[in-house]
């Protein structure tokens, strides 16, 4: 049972997340926590591509917005939440398929630029096609859903609903990463040529990973519009994609915890630091420069490395102390 300490730690974190609203008790901070969780879902989704597939996408805002706009438009048109949400996820996956078909013709910078261009098209549609999207004025989402009869109107209930979705997302990522498909996906990241020669369909593996990533990005988009009860073209803008990418990279790619920590940093900067420092973007920039300087692999793997180093240094020192004691005095 070498996983026992990990399971225990995970259980403690979940417990902490469950009691968090009681500790915060302030609706504002509970809402900030909900935002962290919903952006963590997006960062985890992006991490499937960036971390495990080695494909850096700058187009996830497009997927996020497609899901959000689909739901917002259907709700504004008088459809129910179940219809709107299912359609939103379908559209998110379908859009991912289109993105993937075009972007997977290349990897690296080519992939990044194509995803960026595609998501700018989504932004352009949201901004310009005013008769459909109401342009810059955006669309109001008048109600939140009430799953299993639980109304999500207040900060507490919305936090718990987001937490459930977030935990499902983490669970699905954990299962994926440990599965043979997850191993195949990482293989295509590390040595695509070899994977092909071993009998794997590299393209299809990447395509399926893109769809999975798109599905969870769509879920995050839904949480976002229910949280804000509003959507505007800003959601589809490059900044949303870039922030999600920063969450993944600053926290640590190809880890489960990294994107979550990254989401927490970015959301806290945006919401909490901005209350004290007007130029909070500058603070965010400094934080990222520090992370990249001292922990280029990201905050989570970097901290693990530093802890190991410290632990080893401590052990060495106690051992050499003992050796000194054992040596006869000169």
């Amino acid at each position, binding site marked *: 049972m070498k996983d026992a300490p990990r399971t225990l730690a995970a259980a403690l974190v979940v417990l902490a997340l469950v009691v968090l609203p009681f500790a915060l008790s302030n609706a504002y901070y509970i809402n900030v926590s909900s935002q962290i969780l919903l952006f963590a879902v997006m960062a985890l989704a992006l991490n499937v591509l960036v971390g495990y597939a080695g494909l850096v996408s700058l187009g996830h805002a497009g997927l996020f917005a497609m899901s959000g706009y689909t739901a917002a438009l259907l709700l504004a048109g008088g459809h129910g939440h179940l219809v709107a949400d299912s359609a939103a996820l379908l559209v998110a996956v379908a859009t991912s398929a289109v993105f993937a078909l075009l972007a997977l013709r290349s990897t690296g910078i080519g992939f990044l630029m194509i995803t960026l261009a595609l998501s700018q098209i989504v932004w352009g549609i949201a901004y310009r096609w005013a008769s459909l999207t109401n342009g810059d004025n955006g669309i109001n989402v008048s109600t939140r859903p009430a799953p299993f009869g639980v109304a999500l109107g207040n900060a507490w209930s919305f936090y718990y609903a987001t937490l459930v979705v977030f935990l499902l997302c983490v669970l699905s990522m954990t299962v994926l990463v440990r599965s*043979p498909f*997850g*191993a*195949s996906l990482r293989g295509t990241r590390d040595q695509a040529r070899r994977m092909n*020669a071993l*009998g*794997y369909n590299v393209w299809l593996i990447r395509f399926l990973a893109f769809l*999975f990533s798109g599905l969870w990005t769509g879920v995050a988009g839904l949480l976002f519009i229910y949280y804000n009860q509003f959507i505007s073209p800003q959601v589809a803008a490059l900044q949303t994609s870039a922030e999600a990418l920063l969450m993944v990279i600053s926290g640590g790619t190809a880890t489960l915890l990294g994107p979550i920590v990254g989401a927490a940093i970015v959301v806290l900067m945006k919401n909490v630091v901005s209350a004290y420092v007007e130029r909070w973007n500058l603070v965010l920039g400094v934080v990222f420069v520090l992370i990249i300087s001292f922990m280029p692999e990201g905050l989570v793997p970097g901290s693990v490395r530093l802890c190991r180093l410290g632990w080893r240094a401590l052990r060495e020192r106690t051992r050499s102390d003992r050796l000194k004691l054992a040596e006869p005095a000169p």
Partner: protein
Amino acid sequence: MTALRVEKLSKSFGGLRVTRNVSFTVEPGERRLIIGPNGAGKTTLFNLITGEIAPDTGHVVLFDRDVSRMASRMRPHLGMARTYQIITLFPNDSILRNVMLALLGLSARRWNPFIGLDRQRDLFEEAQAALARVGLVHLADRPLSQTSYGERRRVEIAMALAQNPRVLLLDEPFAGLSIDERRQVQGLLRGLPRELTIVMIEHNMDVALDFAERITLLHFGEVIVEGTRAEVVADHRTREVYLGE
């Protein structure tokens, strides 16, 4: 039935004709050596056989089945496995994981996102067995990044063997090995079952000579000489190519 037949294979990169009208036939169970100086087009020939590069003209026939138009990723499923001259492994994984990936490549389970890879006992045991064949079972859990060059060469071979191929293509399996390591690999290759067909590239003739039954000499992309070991060694063109006489 022949194990591998190459028919009039040609490939040019721009104006450079790296493979010129190459044809040869390898019988089942044969040990074939392909030799030639640097730049003779040996690795390109392997890339054409495995389909990583599409030929301009010509055919590749595997056990009487024309695979010329078949995607390279399908060919391992028909029993074709290869190693690389430039080591092409998964640096973030353990040795065992590298071999498990080779096994998974031929298993339908590679698509499964729901089960745990660590719980696939049969894959684990097969990978252990493949590592035992190359004498690396004691290092199974070591991360690949902490292994020596000679060990990595053997992991390359273990991955190919794990796929239980019918035709094994070895691209300079002795490259960069010390004399001791070379002997280990030679012993390993000698112990492989006779029903396995092996085609090996080597540019250093001394190393692989005693292994080969038939030899094909490539020079500037063309087959210059082909025959039994004695015939090729005795041929004056071999000496011209290798000694510049």
